[in-house]
Every structure is written in structure tokens, then in C-alpha cells.
């Protein structure tokens, strides 16, 4: 029969819309004030932390709605912002510096919805308020450092093999080594070619020069490494800022995006992001008396430092090695599958390490992490005062004379080894980064944007609803139903996709989709009218209308989708949000205006004898 859908098809359409509606519902529940406690530097909040928080809150008579441990974070929800703020202050003070305590707004999604993965849409910074930074890694500097590192490596390689050379120097993009004798040149070439498979070597026997250039792959590797390293460092620092749900993400070849929702004090955020960290290796002062030192009698050649848990140790003042000699640090396992950290040094660092350890085998060596942290205080000129924070991150016994690469075992758990490696790398920041873009949106503007966007969507809807009803009568109602289903689907899909973020231009995208989505129905309805005028029966007209309009709708939508996808590829932030809603809207609108509207039309008018159609 013409214009009748089989039952399964109708059910499927209803099912898809129902799923969309289901996942759209978390957006209706609003948010509750919460405090989020998470561990710093690899420490994870656990059941003990949870109990501690509970005890603290009860002791101070702060009522909370719920408290839960999730993914190494403790989330406590409150009824009011007042108790949220009070709890933050109390927890911040009592938990100590292993934990960051952040204010958060958590969705009030009911458990049954959350259990099936229902979450509200993520709001962009222009709607939620907060700050976003774009940081650029100085790749020139990264390459320069890599090259000068290689120059000194070449020198020590040649020296070790007793190959005599005249000079090793950077030569534009290459490193050139000049020799005195052809034999040396040849020996050097075969040696270096074996050691450095990612370099291209060229010899010129007339000028006795060996030229080494990096392969494209190697250059890419260096850039990639510089970027990854910076991301790791920034993640670590951002965690210390105490921001709920921060985002640190690479963008393109040399940029890092940092989004800190809810942050208003951008000055402090910037200082922390720009803060410098370094590593120092020092010998532990085993002769000095720790008890005396704790009472203030510190030997002249020593300093007193503590580790993360506050356990003090007496260290030699003389620094054995600084972190800028570290070229890499990776965590792994030793032969007994205990966690370990492998450290590589540049050649200068290698000889320093070798000299420093040769007479100290069997003695403990401490690794100290030093960071300059911004404080709340300012000096007379209004500059933020930095506080030097020194912390022992590892003490290990020197087992042998150490050289260019060595390892630290017994660092505890695998997580701790990983963390130590991370901190070691953080201390050797190879490529400097600068803030190249900053966008801060205040909370009032954010809230205003939400309101404006919402109003524009509602008004746009109302206008189109009214017009379609007026112009197409009963079929207008069908188009409006499709339009409503489309909005529900857009919101549902936006909520389902984890990466999709709603922004103000994104809301404009929804408004625009509303206007353009009816186009498909207009095409179909106009076609039906035409067919009726040409004298076809009502059922034939409906059938033909949908069939004939279909290819046009597909063509028109695909081309718009091309434009939207390109926008998605090049756009960032809010503009990307526009591309996201536009793309989703185009796809869902094809479904609702062609398939869903047909389902309604078939159910109401299909298969009946009709003389007139309200179109």
C-alpha cells in the first residue's frame, strides 16, 4: 500500500528519537555546587582521603548532599554555595599540599541516567566563564638545543674512540666535523653512522669535512618531544591550580590549548604556567646530625630539606648536577620487574655525574625538585612575589660510578616511578613556551551569553513554527514536529559526544539549523502541491513529493556539510562549536525532515482515500 510504513520502521524512528530525548534530559536537571579533591603529583585520593574529608566536614558541621570517590578524586556535593565555600577553605587547610581542592559545579543528573552514560552538554568557556590560553612552543629553540647537544655528544664519542678531529661545530642546519687526516674522517664516518641512524652523513675528502644533517623524521621527533614534554609539565602545573575539569590539549604542530573553566584570576594562572622548575642532584650529608639540624644547628656545608611527606633530610650544599643536563627520563622495569626510572644526560652532564659519583659509591644521593611558585603577595612595584619551593623527590643509593645514562630503582610503585620520571623531565624544560593568545570571559558575561543564546533559539523556533503553521496548515504541524525532534536530537547528540562543546556561535548554529532544516520539508511540501496541481491522486502526490525531493535534499545538505566540516577542521574554540552544531544539525535534520516527518504523514494520511489535503 502506498504511504504506509511497516511497523518496524515506525518503531525504529520512534526509538531513535526516544534515545535522543533520553540523552538530552540530563540538561534539564541543572547543577549543584561541589568541592572536588584530587591528588597532586601522582598521589591518588583514596578511601582514607574520603574518610578524612567526611570527618572534617562533620567536625565543622557542614552538611553535604553526597560524597563519592571516583577516578582518584573525591567529589562532595552541597546544597548551597555557602557551605561549598566553607568546605573548600576547611579542606584546603586540613588536607595539606598533596591534594588540590577545587570548586566545581556538578550536574544533578539522576543516578539511573548517569549509569547509562547520560551527561549534560559541555559548555564552552564563552558560556561558562573562565580563561583559555594558547601557548606556543619555541621550536627554533628546541632544535637549537638538540643541535648543540649533538655537538657535544659527537665530541665525546670521537674522544672515546680516540679519533682525532680539528673542530666540531654547528653549520647552519647541519653539524660539521673537520679532521686532519682522511683515515680519521673515514673512521669517524663509520663510527657515527652506526651510532646515529637517524642522521644523514656526507663526507668531503678534499676539505676533510664530515657533515651530519638530521633526517626529517628526526626533526619531527624532536619537535614532537618538545611539545609532549611541555604538555606534561603544564598538566602537572594546571593540576596544582585547583581547577575543576581543566583541559590541556595539543593543537596543531606547536601549540597547546589550556582551558581553565571558572578561573577569574588570570594573573595567577599565568604566573603558574610560566613558572620555572628545575632539578638538582645532591649528595645526602650522612655525617651531619639530623636532630641537631632540626633544632637549627645546620652544618655550614649542608642544607635541610624535606620530602613530600615532610620527612626531613640533611643534604650537601654542593650541587652535583643540575637538571638542564637531563635529556630524557623514562619509567620502566628492571630485571626483577621492579619499577625504575632511566635517566639520560648530555655528555657534559655525564662527565659531571661520573666525577661526582666516583668517590661516593654506596652513599645516598638525593634528587631535589625546585619550583618557583607565585604567591598571593606582591612587591612594591606590583609584581607577584615568587616563592622558591624545594622538595626532595627521591633518595637513592649510588651503586656504581654513574655516567651518561643511569637509573634510579626502588622508587616505590610504578605510579611513583612514572611520576619521578615526569618530574625529572619537567626539570629539564627543553623548549621555552610563550602565551600567544588569551581569552577570559567573566561569569556575568557567560551567564548573559547563555540567556541570549537561549532566547534567540526560542524566538527563532517560535517564528518558524508560526510561519509553517500559517503556510502549510496540517503539514506545517508535521514540519514543526520534525523541527522539535531535530532540536531534541541535536541536544541529545551533543550530550552524547564527549568532545562536543556548546558555545555561543554554536547556539547560533542551532538557530541557523532551525531555519534551514525546514527547507527540506518546504521542498517536499512544495513538490506535493505541484503533484496535486498536476492532477495526481493525493497518495501519489505525497509519494512523489517525498521521492522527487529526496536527491535534491541530499545534494543540498552534503554541500553544506562540506563547508561545515572544513570550518571544523580550521576553526578553534567558539567557531569550532559553530561547526559542530551545524554539522550535527544538518545530519539530524535530514533524518527528522525526511524520515520522521514521513512517518507522521504516513500514520495520519497514508493509505486512506483522500480528496483534499491540508497543505
Amino acid at each position, binding site marked *: 500500500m502506498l504511504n504506509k510504513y511497516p511497523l518496524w520502521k515506525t518503531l525504529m524512528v520512534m526509538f531513535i528519537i526516544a534515545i535522543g530525548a533520553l540523552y538530552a534530559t540530563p540538561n534539564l536537571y541543572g547543577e549543584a555546587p561541589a568541592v572536588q579533591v584530587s591528588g597532586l603529583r601522582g598521589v591518588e585520593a583514596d578511601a582514607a582521603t574520603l574518610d578524612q574529608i567526611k570527618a572534617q566536614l562533620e567536625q565543622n558541621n557542614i552538611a553535604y548532599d553526597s560524597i563519592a570517590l571516583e577516578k582518584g578524586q573525591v567529589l562532595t556535593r552541597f546544597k548551597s554555595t555557602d557551605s561549598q565555600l566553607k568546605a573548600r577553605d576547611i579542606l584546603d587547610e586540613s588536607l595539606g599540599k598533596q591534594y588540590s581542592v577545587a570548586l566545581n559545579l556538578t550536574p544533578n543528573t539522576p543516578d539511573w541516567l548517569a549509569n547509562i552514560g547520560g551527561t549534560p552538554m559541555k559548555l564552552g568557556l564563552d558560556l561558562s566563564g573562565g580563561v583559555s590560553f594558547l601557548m606556543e612552543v619555541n621550536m627554533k629553540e628546541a632544535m637549537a638545543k638538540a643541535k648543540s647537544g649533538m655537538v657535544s655528544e659527537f665530541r665525546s664519542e670521537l674522544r672515546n674512540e680516540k679519533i682525532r678531529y680539528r673542530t666540531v661545530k654547528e653549520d647552519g642546519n647541519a653539524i660539521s666535523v673537520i679532521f686532519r687526516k682522511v683515515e680519521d674522517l673515514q673512521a669517524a664516518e663509520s663510527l657515527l653512522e652506526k651510532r646515529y641512524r637517524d642522521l644523514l652523513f656526507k663526507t668531503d675528502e678534499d676539505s676533510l669535512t664530515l657533515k651530519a644533517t638530521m633526517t626529517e623524521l628526526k626533526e619531527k621527533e624532536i619537535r614532537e618531544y618538545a611539545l609532549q614534554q611541555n604538555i606534561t609539565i603544564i598538566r602537572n602545573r594546571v593540576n596544582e591550580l585547583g581547577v575543576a575539569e581543566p583541559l590541556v590539549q595539543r593543537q596543531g604542530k606547536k601549540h597547546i590549548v589550556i582551558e581553565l573553566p571558572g578561573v577569574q584570576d588570570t594573573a595567577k594562572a599565568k604566573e603558574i604556567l610560566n613558572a620555572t622548575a628545575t632539578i638538582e642532584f645532591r649528595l645526602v650529608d650522612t655525617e651531619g646530625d639530623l636532630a641537631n639540624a632540626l633544632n637549627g644547628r645546620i652544618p655550614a656545608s649542608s642544607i635541610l630539606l624535606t620530602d613530600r611527606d615532610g620527612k626531613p633530610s640533611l643534604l650537601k650544599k654542593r650541587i652535583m648536577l643540575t637538571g638542564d643536563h637531563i635529556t630524557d627520563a623514562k619509567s620502566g622495569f628492571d630485571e626483577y620487574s621492579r619499577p625504575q626510572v632511566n635517566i639520560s644526560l648530555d655528555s657534559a652532564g655525564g662527565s659531571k655525574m661520573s666525577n661526582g659519583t666516583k668517590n661516593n659509591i654506596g652513599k645516598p644521593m638525593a634528587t631535589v625538585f625546585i619550583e618557583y611558585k607565585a604567591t598571593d603577595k606582591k612587591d612594591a612595584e606590583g609584581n607577584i612575589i615568587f616563592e622558591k619551593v624545594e622538595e626532595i623527590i627521591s633518595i637513592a643509593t649510588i651503586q656504581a660510578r654513574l655516567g651518561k645514562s643511569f637509573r634510579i630503582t626502588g622508587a616505590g610503585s610504578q605510579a611513583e616511578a612514572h611520576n619521578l620520571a615526569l618530574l625529572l623531565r619537567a626539570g629539564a624544560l627543553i623548549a621555552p613556551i610563550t602565551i600567544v593568545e588569551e581569552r577570559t570571559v567573566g561569569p556575568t558575561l557567560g551567564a548573559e551569553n547563555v540567556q541570549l543564546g537561549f532566547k534567540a533559539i526560542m524566538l527563532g523556533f517560535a517564528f518558524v513554527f508560526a510561519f509553517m503553521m500559517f503556510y502549510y496548515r496540517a503539514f506545517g504541524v508535521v514540519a514543526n514536529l520534525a523541527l522539535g525532534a531535530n532540536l531534541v536530537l541535536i541536544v541529545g547528540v551533543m550530550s552524547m559526544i564527549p568532545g562536543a562543546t556548546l558555545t555561543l556561535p554554536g547556539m547560533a548554529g542551532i538557530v541557523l539549523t532551525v531555519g534551514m532544516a*525546514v527547507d527540506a520539508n518546504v521542498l517536499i511540501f512544495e513538490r506535493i502541491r505541484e503533484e496535486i496541481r498536476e492532477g495526481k491522486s493525493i497518495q501519489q502526490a505525497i509519494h512523489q513529493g517525498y521521492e522527487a525531493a529526496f536527491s535534491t535534499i541530499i545534494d543540498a545538505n552534503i554541500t553544506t556539510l562540506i563547508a561545515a566540516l572544513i570550518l571544523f577542521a580550521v576553526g578553534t574554540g567558539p567557531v569550532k562549536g559553530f561547526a559542530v552544531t*551545524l554539522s550535527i544539525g544538518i545530519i539530524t535534520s535530514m533524518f527528522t525532515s525526511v524520515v520522521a516527518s514521513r512517518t507522521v504523514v504516513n500514520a495520519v494520511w497514508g493509505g486512506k482515500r483522500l480528496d483534499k489535503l491540508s497543505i
Partner: protein
Amino acid sequence: MFNLRLKETVAFMSYRKFAMIFSAVLMLAAVTSLATNKLNFGLDFTGGTLIEVGFEQAADLESLRDVMTSNGFPEAKIQFYGSSSDVVIRLGLRDDVKAEMLGNQVLDILQSNTGQNIDMRRIEFVGASVGDELAEQGGLAMLTALICILVYVAFRFEWRFAIGSVAALFHDVLLTLGLFSVLGLEFDLTVLAAILAVIGYSLNDTIVVSDRIRENFRKLRTGTTEEIINTSLTQTLSRTFITSITTLLVLAALFFWGGALIHGFATALLFGVFVGTYSSIYVASSVALSLGISKEDLIPEVIEKEGADQEEMMP
């Protein structure tokens, strides 16, 4: 039954000479304005710092200017934004001050010199390199979009249609850019997004028209190419109008109630939808016609298609 349908076929194509001259004049004006006035590029492209602050009462721009000048920012551009208590301050890139600190510095100056409680609404800082990259990327994006669309339309229809639709897109983009240049409106990232949306919209229209022309070439046995194009344009005219009306309705909602941040976006789209509608009638079709599109170009598929049609008609 409400109806916007015209009773008789409109001889659209007989006016195409006028339309072409009209379009050419407008495009020439746009190019001239772009060459002389240039585009008023926003912060996204030029780099610099923008600070938007909300005052408790209406702000006095003159005294704000004095405050900024006496604190070492004589070049600061200060304007109302949306309302009289909402002020935007723009600063160019400077070498002497750490640019990323400028926003907070200005905020402090205003706070201590106006005696009003100031609400920081937004601070934007864009470095010089970012702006350049963005301008390059934006241009590239538009070019890529045009090429992809050209290829798709050529593949689905015919190369003459493809050239016609891309000519229409070029026309729309150029005129929209021209409008922004003539009126000196700020051209920022959201406007770029709007222009890409205009491309999408205008194309939508063009495709619907081209689709009908193709269909009529196959269906109608008589008539010259020009007549068939006229018939097709007439048949699709009501749809063109209705879709334009619904789109303009929602855009009006954005333009009047969407707030200042979205104003440029809405302006570009409003204008773009107008010219997009016009260009799908007069630019796309008449370019295809001038390039000599004819029945034969679309004939090979006819036999197959009509057969399929007939089968479907049988109950």
C-alpha cells in the same frame, strides 16, 4: 491554501543582461572598497588586547580616555559595547609591556581611577603570529571549501553547473566582504564562520535550482534551454522564497536578540542570505547558460532514469 506560486512562467533569463551588469557593478564596488577601505579586521586577525568591562552606571567615555592617556595608554580605543554601561577598550600590540599582562593592568587602572565597581566581562589577547596564521588559515579554508564544492557539484551534475554555482558563491562572499568593508564593520572569526555558512546556504539554493533544471531537461521534450531554465526557476521560486523567509526569521531573532557578540555573525548571514537567494537565480543559472549548457549535456542518464520512473508508477 496559501500560495506564493506564480501563475505564469517568469522570463527570468531575459533580464539576465541587466542582472549581470548589476552584479558586476556591485562586485566592482566591493573590490574597490576592499582595496581602499580594506577590511576592519578584528582582534582575532590583527593581534592585540581587548578588555570589556561593565560599569554600575553609564560610563563616561571622555573621562575614561583621560584615565587611559594619563596612565600611559594614549592609543587605547574606547567604545560602548551593546549598552552605555558596557565598555570595550582595545589596545594594539606593544613591545615594551608584556602583552599577556596588559589586560589585568588596564583593569587595575580602571578600578583605581573611576571609583566604580568594575565587572570584568572579558579579556582577549591575541599575539601577532596567531593573527597572521589565522588569516592564512581562514583564506585557505574558504578556498578549500570552494574547491571541494566545485568538485562535488561537477561530479553530481555537470561542470557548467559547478562553475555556475562556484561563481555564485564567489559573488556572495565578495559582496558580503564588500558590505563589511563599506560599512567598516569588524571582521572577526565569527564573521568568517558566518561567511562559510553563507557559502553553505547559497549553495543549498543553487543546488535546488540546478536539480530542477536537470530534471526538466530530461522531462520536458520541447523548449529552448532558456525556456527550460525559466520554467525551473519559476517552479522553484516559491520554495526559494519560503526557505529564505524562514531563514531570515531566525536570523532576525539572532540579529535583534542575540547580543552584541553575535551581531557581526548575524549581519553577515542576513546579508548573505539575501544575495545568496538572488545569486542562485541570476548568477548560477545565467553563468551555466552562458557557458552553453544544453539538453544534450544531461541526456545520457535520461533513458535509464525514465525507465526507473515508470516502474515505480505501477502500483
